C-alpha cells in the first residue's frame, strides 16, 4: 500500500473533522433565508464529506487495513470493481 496515500487520507480525515463546525464564523449571527449562515456551512460541509467518503470508498477502500498491498493503494477503480457484483456474498 502507498504510504503517501495513507498520510494524505489521514490529513483529509482531520481536515474534514476540523471544519465541520465553522470556527471562523464564531460569534456571527448572519441569517440567510432565515437560517444562520454557519448552519448552511455545516449542511454544505456534510454534503462535501459524503462526497469525499464516496470517493475514498471507490478508490482507496482497504487503505491501512488490508494486508495485500496492491489491491487498494491508489490504482483508480480497481478496489471497487472486485465486488461490484452486489450486496450479498
Amino acid at each position, binding site marked *: 500500500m502507498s504510504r503517501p496515500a495513507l498520510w494524505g487520507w489521514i490529513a483529509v480525515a482531520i481536515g474534514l473533522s476540523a471544519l465541520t463546525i465553522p470556527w471562523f464564523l464564531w460569534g456571527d449571527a448572519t*441569517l440567510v433565508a432565515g437560517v*444562520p449562515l454557519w448552519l448552511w456551512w455545516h449542511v454544505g460541509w456534510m454534503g462535501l*464529506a*459524503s462526497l469525499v467518503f*464516496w470517493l475514498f470508498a471507490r478508490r482507496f477502500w482497504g487503505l*491501512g*487495513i488490508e494486508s495485500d498491498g496492491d489491491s487498494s493503494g491508489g490504482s483508480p477503480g480497481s478496489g471497487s470493481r472486485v465486488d461490484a457484483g452486489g450486496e450479498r456474498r
Partner: protein
Amino acid sequence: MTVAIQLGIIVGYLLLALAIGLVAYRLTDRTAEDFYLASRTVGTIVLLFTTFATLLSAFTFFAGPNVAYEQGPEWVLVMGLMDGIIFAILWYVIGYKQWLLGRQYDYVTLGEMLGDRFASRRLRGLVAGVSLLWLFPYVMLQQVGAGTALQALTEGTVPYAVGAGLITAFMILYVVVAGFRGIAWTDTLQGAFMLVTTWIALVWVLAVVGGPSAASSALEAEAAHHLALGSDFYTVQWMLSTAITIGFGVAMFPQVNQRFFAAGSKTVLKRSFALWPLLCVLLFVPSFLLGAWARGLDVTISEGENVLPVILAEFTPVWFAALVIAGAMAAMMSSSDSMLLSGSSYFTRDLYRPFVESDLSERREDLLARIGVVGFATASFLASLWNPATLFELGDAAFSGFAQLALPVMVALYWRKTTRAGITAGILASQAFYLSSLFTAVVPSAYAGWTAGLVGMGLGLVVTVGVSLLTTPAADERRTIYFDGLEAD
C-alpha cells in the same frame, strides 16, 4: 378522544413491528450467530438504517431539541461532527477492520475479538463487564424516556410505571422472538419513519408561523444570542469534548459495535459509509431547529417537559403529533431492543460461557441468549422505577464511559507491539479515572473547559502504549492475527 387516537397510533405501530418480527422469526436459524448477527448477511439499506435508528435514540427526539431550546441550535453542529463525521471515520477505521476479522475468525462480540488476540479470558470478561456497566443505565434511560413520554402524551392516564412496563414487556417479547434480523428490519422502517415525520413536522410548524425568517425573528426577539455561533454554554472546548467523546463512545456501544460484524459484504460497508453524513444532517437539522425555534414561539414548556411534543401539540393536529411521538417511541425502542440483544450476547458469550459453562451447545446458547434478554430488560425496568434521573446526564455518562474503551482498542487493532498487560492497564486506568470523576470529588470533571471523558481517553491511550512498551507480550498472544492475511475477497 385525543388519548384514544394517540394510543391507537402507538398500539398500531407496535403491532406492525411485531408482525415484522414474526416474519423474521420464521427465517431464523436457531443458532446464536443468527440470533445476534443475522448470520452476517445484512444489506446496505438495512445496515444503514439499523445503525442509524440504533444510534439515534430518545436523545435526538427529546434531549436534543431540549438542548437546542435552552441553548440554541449549535447542537446540530455538535451532533453533526460526532455522528456524521467522527463516527463515519471510525466506521472505516474500527468497523471495516472488525468486519474483516469477524468474518475470518467468527467473532460476535468485541470482547471475543480482543480475548482471542491477547489470549486472555480475563480481558474478554473485562471488556464485557465494562460494557454492561454502561449499557445498563443507558437501557434504563430509554425506558424512563418511553414511560415519561407515554405519561405526558396521555396526560397521566397511563402512569409512568405502566407505560414503561408495557414498553419493556413488548421489547422483551419482540427481541426474544425476532432476533437481530427482525430488529434490523423494524429499524429500517423506524429510521425512514423518523426522517419523514421530522421533516413534515418542521414544514408544518413553519407553515403555521410564516416561514424560517419569521421563526428566526421571533427567536431573535426572545433570545438574540441564540442565533450567533457559540455562547457561554457552547464553548469551543465543550463542543469538541462532547463531539469527540460521544463519537468514539458510539463506536464502542455494544449494539453499534456489533453491527460492524453484521454487514453482508464490503460493498454494503462502503455505501453505508458514504451515505452516513447525509443521513445525519437530514435528521439533525429539522429536529434541532424545531427545538431552537420553539423558544421564540410563545409556547410554555413547564419544568421537566420535553419541547418537541409540546410544540407539535400546539401547532399540528392531534393525529400528527401522536404520529411523531410514536416515531420517538419507535426510536427509543429500536435503540433499546438492539441494546438488549447486544447486552445479552456480551453476557452469554463473554461472561457466562468462558467463566461458567464452557461446553455450551449452539442450541443451548441460543436459548440462554433469549433468557439473558428477559433478565436484562426486567432488571433495568425495575431500576428505572427506583431512580429516574434526567436523560441527558445519564446518556452523556454512558457515551463517555464507552469512549474510554475506544483508544485502547484502536491501539490494539493498529499497533503490533500492544501487549495484554498494556491494553488491560489502559482499559482499567481510563475506566477508573472516568468513574472517579463522576462519583468522587477527588478527580475533577473539567480541565480548563475540557471534559473528564476526553481527558480519560487520553489517559487510556498513554497507559496502553506506555505499559505495552514496558512489558513483553505473553507467549500465547496471537500477535499477528490483526495484521496478516487480512483481505476482503
